[in-house]
C-alpha cells in the first residue's frame, strides 16, 4: 500500500493498517524488561520504573524475574568478567525477538573501571546492543529516551526482506557463544560475529 495514499486516507478518517504495523505497534508498547541490575545504574533503572518517571507509560513496567518472559535486557551497570558469562547466558534464554539497552558508561565501554583487570570493556563484545546510553549513571530521562529510541526501532522493523530480524533468518543461530572464565581473561575475549570495532586511527 502506498504510504502517501495511506496518510491521505487517514486525513479523511479512514484508518488502514497492515499486520506488520499492528504487530509492531503491539510489540513496541508492551516491552517487558528483565528485572536485572548489575550496579549503581540499576538504581536509576528502578527509579525510572517508579512513580516519578513512570516507565509504565510506555507499557514496560512489568519487570520479569525470568528471562523466558522478557523482551528487553537493560544491562544496567558494570559488567565484571566474572558476571559476563551469566549475562550472555541470560540473554540466550530470552525468547526472540529480544532487545538490549546498554545503560551507562560501564555497560557500553567499561566506564571509569575500564583500566580494571576484572571489568568487561562493554557488553557489546558478546551480545548485540540496540541502544547505548552514556552517563555515569544516566538519569532516568536518558533511560526513557533510550526506551523511546528502541520503540522507534521496533516500529520500523520489517517482518520480511533483507532487514528482517535475526530470528526469522532460517540459518541464523539462536544462541550466542557464552565466554568461559579463563585463567587471564574471558575466552574468547569477544564475539567477532557481534563486535567488529573500527581499527584505531594512529597518527
Amino acid at each position, binding site marked *: 500500500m502506498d504510504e502517501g495514499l495511506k496518510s491521505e486516507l487517514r486525513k479523511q478518517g479512514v484508518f488502514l493498517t497492515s499486520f506488520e504495523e499492528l504487530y509492531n505497534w503491539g510489540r513496541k508498547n508492551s516491552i517487558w524488561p528483565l528485572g536485572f541490575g548489575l550496579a549503581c545504574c540499576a538504581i536509576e533503572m528502578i527509579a525510572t520504573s517508579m512513580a516519578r518517571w513512570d516507565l509504565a507509560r510506555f507499557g514496560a513496567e512489568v519487570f520479569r524475574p525470568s528471562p523466558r518472559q522478557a523482551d528487553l535486557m537493560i544491562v544496567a551497570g558494570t559488567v565484571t568478567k566474572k558476571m559476563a558469562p*551469566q549475562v550472555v547466558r541470560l540473554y540466550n534464554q530470552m525468547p526472540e525477538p529480544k532487545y538490549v539497552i546498554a545503560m551507562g558508561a560501564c555497560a557500553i565501554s567499561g566506564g571509569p573501571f575500564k583500566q580494571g583487570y576484572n571489568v568487561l570493556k562493554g557488553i557489546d563484545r558478546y551480545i548485540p546492543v540496540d541502544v547505548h546510553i552514556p552517563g555515569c549513571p544516566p538519569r532516568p530521562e536518558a533511560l526513557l529516551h533510550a526506551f523511546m529510541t528502541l520503540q522507534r526501532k521496533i516500529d520500523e522493523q520489517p517482518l520480511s526482506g533483507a532487514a528482517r530480524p535475526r530470528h526469522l533468518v532460517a540459518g541464523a543461530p*539462536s544462541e550466542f557463544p557464552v565466554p568461559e572464565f579463563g585463567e587471564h581473561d574471558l575466552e574468547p575475549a569477544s564475539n567477532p560475529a557481534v563486535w567488529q570495532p573500527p581499527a584505531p586511527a594512529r597518527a
Partner: protein
Amino acid sequence: MMQPTDNPYLLIIILLVGAVAFAVTPLALAWLWAKKFSPRKPGRDKNAIYECGLESKGDAWVQFKAEYYLYAIIFLIFDVETIFLLPFAAAFNGLGAGAFVAMVVFLLLLAEGLAWAWQKGVLTWR
C-alpha cells in the same frame, strides 16, 4: 421453522459454542502467528532448567547427615537454662536460701545432662 425457544437446550449449546470459540480463537491465532513469525530454535542454554544465569552442576540427590539433631537437643539445655537464669538474676538480691538452693539444683541437673551426653561421646562429630 424451528424457533430457538422450541428446545431450551439449543440456546445453551449456542452459548457453549460461543464461549469455547471466544477462548480458543485467540489461542489458535497466537499459535498460528508464532508458527510463522517466531520459529522454534531450541538450544543448550534455552533448554537449561534454571534461569539464574549459572549452569547447574552436581547431583540433586545429596544426602545430609541427620546426626545434628543431637546437637539441637543439647542446645535445648542451654536454651531452657537461659530462660530461667534471667529472672533468677533479676530477682537475685531478694531471694531466700531455699529459692537459691532450688535454682542451683536445677542448674546442676542440666549440667549433669550435658556431662552425660559428653561422656556418651555425642559431642564428637563423626
